[in-house]
C-alpha cells in the first residue's frame, strides 16, 4: 500500500462549504440560481470523489494534512477504500436529494429555504470530512461539526414540535459525544504514544489490556450515538420532524452512517480486529447491537406514522452494521461495510417515497395508504423495491450485504447472532409488506376516490425512481463496492 500526497480530498471536502457563499448570496429572490449552485457543487463534489477511485483501487492511499493539532496528530485527510466508498455514496445521493428537495420544498411551501440549502451543503462537507479523516482527532472534529450543522435542519419548522425535536437531537448527540467519545479519544491518545492515525492493524493494538479495550469499545459505541445503538437511539425518531429531504439524506444516509462509520473505524483502525480477536471482549458489543436489532424491529411494527416506522427500521439496520463489525471475522466486517451503500440506497428510496406521498396527498400515516398504489404507481413501486432491499430479498443490493454478514456470523460460530439476523429479516418483512399490500391491493378507505391525487412533482419522483433502480443495479453490478471494501479486508 503506497501513500500519495494529494489535494483532491481537500477540494472534495471544501466544494460544498464554498457553495454556501453563492447559496446565501443568491437567496430566495433568485432561487433557481441558488438551486443551480447546489447542483453545480454537487456534481463537482461527486466528480472529485469519483476521480479518486482509480488511484484507490490501485492500492494507493491519498493523503493530505495541514495543521498539527496535537503533537504527532495533524488535521489530516486519508482516503482509503472504506472512506471513499462512503464518500461516493454520500456525494452521489446528495445530487439526487437536491433534485428531490426542489420538488419537496417548493411543493410543500416550506419557509427559510436558503438556510435549508446552506446547512445541507455544510452537512455534506462535514460528512466528507468524517469519511476522509485520517486520524481519530480529525474524525471527532468533523463528527461534532456534523451534529451542529444538522441541528438547524432538524429545527427547520421552528414550531414547538420542531424545537423539542431539535433539543432532543442535539442533547443526545452532544451529550454522548462529549461524555463518552471525547474521553475515549483522549484515552486513546494517551495510550497511543502520540500517533492516532488509523492503521489497518489498529493504532492501539497491543497497547491496552482487555478491560481497557472493552471500556473503549463501549465508549465509542455509545459515544458515536449517531449510530443509534440503544439506549441512545431516541434522537432519531424525534429528528423526523425535519423536512423529508433531511430525513432522507441525513437521517438515513449521511448522519447515521457517519455514526456506524466511526464505530467501524474504532474497531478496524483504532483497536484492530485482529487484536480484538485475541481479547474476546467484542461479543458484549455484538449483543448490545443484537438487542437493538430485534427491539427496534418490534417497535417499528407498532408504528403508524410512516416516517417514524422508517426511523426505527433505520435504527435496526444500523445495528446490523455494528453487529457485523463486532463479529471481527473478515466476511462479517466486509458485509457491514457493504451494508453502508446497500442500506443507503434502499432507505433513501423509502424516505423519498414517504415524502412524495406527503407532498402529493398530505398523508403521513400508514393506515391512510389504502389503495394509494393505483394513484401513485411509480412511488409505491419504488417503495416496494426499497423495502425489498432493506429486508434483504433477491434482486436488490440489500441481499448481498446481508448474506455476507450472515456468512460472517457462521464463520464466527455465533449461531445465536446468526439467528438474530434471520429473525429480524422476517420482522422487517412483517412491517414492510402490509404497507405495500395496503397500497396496491386494498380499496381506498370509506370509498375515497383518488381522482385528485396523482404522482408528486417530477423532481420528487425522478430521484426516487433512480435510487430504486440503484438498489437493483447494486445487486447486478456490485463490483466496485466489493473491490473497495475488499481493500479494507486484505489491507495488510
Amino acid at each position, binding site marked *: 500500500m503506497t501513500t500519495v500526497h494529494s489535494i483532491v480530498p481537500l477540494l472534495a471536502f471544501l466544494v460544498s462549504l464554498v457553495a454556501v457563499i453563492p447559496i446565501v448570496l443568491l437567496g430566495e429572490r433568485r432561487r433557481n440560481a441558488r438551486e443551480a449552485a447546489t447542483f453545480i457543487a454537487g456534481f463537482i463534489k461527486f466528480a472529485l470523489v469519483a476521480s479518486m477511485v482509480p488511484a484507490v483501487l490501485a492500492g494507493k492511499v491519498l493523503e493530505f494534512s495541514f495543521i498539527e493539532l496535537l503533537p504527532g496528530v495533524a488535521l489530516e485527510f486519508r482516503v482509503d477504500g472504506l472512506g471513499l466508498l462512503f464518500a461516493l455514496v454520500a456525494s452521489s445521493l446528495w445530487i439526487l436529494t437536491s433534485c428531490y428537495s426542489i420538488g419537496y420544498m417548493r411543493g410543500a411551501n416550506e419557509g427559510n429555504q436558503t438556510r435549508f440549502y*446552506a446547512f445541507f451543503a455544510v452537512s455534506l462537507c462535514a460528512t466528507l470530512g468524517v469519511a476522509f479523516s485520517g486520524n481519530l482527532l480529525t474524525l471527532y472534529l468533523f463528527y461534532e461539526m456534523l451534529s*451542529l450543522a444538522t441541528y438547524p435542519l432538524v429545527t427547520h419548522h421552528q414550531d414547538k414540535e420542531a424545537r423539542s425535536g431539535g433539543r432532543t437531537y442535539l442533547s443526545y448527540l452532544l451529550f454522548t459525544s462529549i461524555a463518552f467519545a471525547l474521553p475515549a479519544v483522549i484515552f486513546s491518545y494517551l495510550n497511543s504514544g502520540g500517533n492516532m492515525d488509523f492503521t489497518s492493524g489498529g493504532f492501539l493494538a497491543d497497547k491496552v489490556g482487555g478491560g481497557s479495550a472493552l471500556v473503549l469499545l463501549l465508549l465509542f459505541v455509545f459515544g458515536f450515538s449517531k449510530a443509534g445503538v440503544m439506549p441512545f437511539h431516541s434522537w432519531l425518531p424525534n429528528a423526523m420532524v425535519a423536512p423529508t429531504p433531511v430525513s432522507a439524506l441525513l437521517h438515513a444516509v449521511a448522519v447515521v452512517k457517519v455514526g456506524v462509520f466511526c464505530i467501524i473505524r474504532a474497531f478496524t483502525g483504532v483497536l484492530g480486529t485482529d487484536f480484538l480477536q485475541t481479547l474476546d471482549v467484542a461479543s458484549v458489543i455484538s449483543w448490545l447491537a443484537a438487542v437493538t436489532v430485534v427491539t427496534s424491529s418490534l417497535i417499528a411494527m407498532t408504528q403508524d406514522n410512516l416516517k417514524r416506522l422508517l426511523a426505527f427500521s433505520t435504527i435496526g439496520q444500523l445495528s446490523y452494521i455494528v453487529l457485523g463489525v463486532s463479529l471481527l471475522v473478515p466476511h462479517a466486517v466486509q458485509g457491514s461495510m457493504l451494508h453502508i451503500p446497500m442500506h443507503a440506497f434502499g432507505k433513501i428510496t423509502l424516505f423519498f417515497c414517504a415524502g412524495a406521498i406527503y407532498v402529493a396527498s398530505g398523508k403521513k400515516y400508514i393506515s391512510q395508504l389504502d389503495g394509494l398504489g393505483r394513484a401513485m404507481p411509480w412511488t409505491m413501486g419504488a417503495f416496494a423495491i426499497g423495502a425489498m432491499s432493506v429486508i434483504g430479498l433477491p434482486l436488490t443490493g440489500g441481499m448481498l450485504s446481508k448474506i455476507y454478514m450472515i456468512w460472517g456470523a457462521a464463520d464466527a460460530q455465533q449461531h445465536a447472532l446468526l439467528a438474530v439476523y434471520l429473525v429480524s429479516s422476517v420482522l422487517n418483512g412483517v412491517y414492510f409488506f402490509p404497507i405495500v399490500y395496503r397500497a396496491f391491493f386494498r380499496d381506498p378507505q370509506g370509498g375515497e376516490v383518488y381522482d385528485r391525487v396523482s404522482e408528486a412533482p417530477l423532481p420528487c419522483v425522478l430521484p426516487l425512481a433512480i435510487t430504486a433502480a440503484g438498489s437493483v443495479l447494486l445487486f447486478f453490478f456490485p463490483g466496485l463496492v466489493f473491490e473497495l471494501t475488499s481493500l479494507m479486508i486484505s489491507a495488510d
Partner: protein
Amino acid sequence: MTDQLPAIIVLMPLLGALLSVLLGMFDRKLCLPVALVALAITASSAVAMLANVLASPGQSLSYRFGGWDPLVGIEYRIDALSGLVVLAITAVGFLNAIYSKTRVRDESPRREHYFYALYLLLVAGLCGMVLTNDAFNLYVLLEICSLTSYALIAIGNRRAALASFNYVIIGTIGASFYLLGVGYLYIKTGALNMDGIHAALRANDIADSPTIKVGFILIMLGVWIKMALFPLHGWLSNAYSYAPTTTGTLMAPLMTKVMVYIMIRMMLSVFGTEFVFHEEFWSNGVVWIATVAIIAGSVLALARSDIKKMLTYLIVAEVGYMVGGAWLGNHSGMIGASYHILSDAAMTFCLFLAAGIIINRTGEARMNAFDGAFKKYPLTMIGFTVGALAMIGLPPSCGFFSKFYLISGGIEAGQWGFVVALLFSSLVNAVLFFRIFERAYFPKDLASGFEFGGDPDAKPDRSLDQVPYSMLVPMLIAAASLLVIGLANQTIVGWLNTALASFSLK
C-alpha cells in the same frame, strides 16, 4: 531600546492615566485617543517583548528597574508564559478601549477622564503583576489593581456601589492574606525576590518549617479569594454584572486569569514543585475543591436567567478548571492550566463583548434579550456563537484544546472526579448556550426566524447589526482569536513547554 520593553509596558499606561486626567480637564474628548495611543504602544511592546523572549537563550529575560541588584531593587522576569499573559492583557485592554468608545460616553457622562485614568492604571497594574519577580512589588501592584477596580465597578449602576463595597471587603481580606504570607516568607528567608526566596528555601533547607507552610497557605488563600475560587466566589457575580459594560468586559476576562497566573508563579517559582506537591493529601484536596468549583459554577450558571450573571458563574467554573489543572501536579495539567489562562481570557472576552452588545441594543438583561437576535444582529450572534462553542469545548476552538490537555492531565494523575467534572461542565455549557441559540436562531415568531438574505419583499437593512463599528470590530476580532489560539495551540504549547521545562513536573 528593546531591552527597556518591560518597563515601557508598565509605564506607558501609567503615563496615559496621568495625561488622561490632565487633558480631560480641558476636553474630555481627548481621553479616549490618549488611552488608545498608550494601550497601542503597550500592546505592540508586548508583542515585541514576546518575540525577544522567544529569541533569547532559555526563553527567559530579566529586567532590573533602575539597574539595581535584585537583592535590593525590583526585578522583572519574563518567560514565554508571562509574555503570553501580558500580551493577552494588553490586547484585551486595547480592543476593549475601542469597544468602550460609545459605551463610556453614554454610561458615565462627564466622568470619562476618570474612567480612562482608572482603566489605564488597572492595565498597568495587571501587566506589572505578571512581569514582576518581586513578591512585595507584586503586592503593591495587586493593590493598584484592586483599588482601581473598586472604583471602576462603583461607576456602574445604583446596585454597583454595594457590589463594589462587598468586593472591597473581600478583596482587602484576600490581599492582606497575601501580604501576611509574604511577611512570613521574608522573616524566614530575608528575601523578597522570588528567585531569592526560592534559593533561600533550598539552601537553608527550611521548606519543612511551619512558618513557610503557614506562609504558603496564606498566600494561596489570598490568591484564591482574589480569583473567586468556589466557595470564595461570593463577591464576583454582582461586582462584574452591575459594573459598567466596559468595566465588566475588561475585568471578567483578566482579573481571575491573572490571579491564576500568580498562583502558578508562586507554586512553581517561589515554592517549587517538590514543596507544593510533597503532600499528596493536600494537593489532591485542592483538586477536589476545584472539582466542586467546576460543578458548582456550572450548576449556578444554569440557574441564572440574567445573561451577565450566567457568564460570571461560568468564570467560577473556569477558575476551577485552571486551579485543578495546576494542582494535578503533572506536566499536562500545568500546560492545560496555563494554556487555559489564554483561551479562557479570549473566550470570556468574546462572550462579554457580544452579550454587552445584545444587552445594550435590546435594553434587556435577561435571556429574552436573545429572542430572534440572529435576524437583528447577525454578526454579533455569530461572534457569540463562536464564543459559546469554544466554551462548550468543540474543536477546533481553543476551548477544546485546553480541555484536551486538562483531561489528559486528569487521566494521567488518576483524578477521575476532575475528569468527570470537566465533561459535566462541557455538557452544562452545551445546555446553557443551546437554550440561547434556540431563542436566537429559531424563535417562536416565524417571521423573526433565522434566514439568510431575509424576507424577499422587505427592504434590505443596510446598517450592520445597528451597532457602531467600534463595538462590532473588537468583538469579531475576539471571536476570530478563539480559532487562531485553537489552531495555533501546538506553537503556544511549545513555548509553554520551554517555560515549564525548568520546573521538575512529572
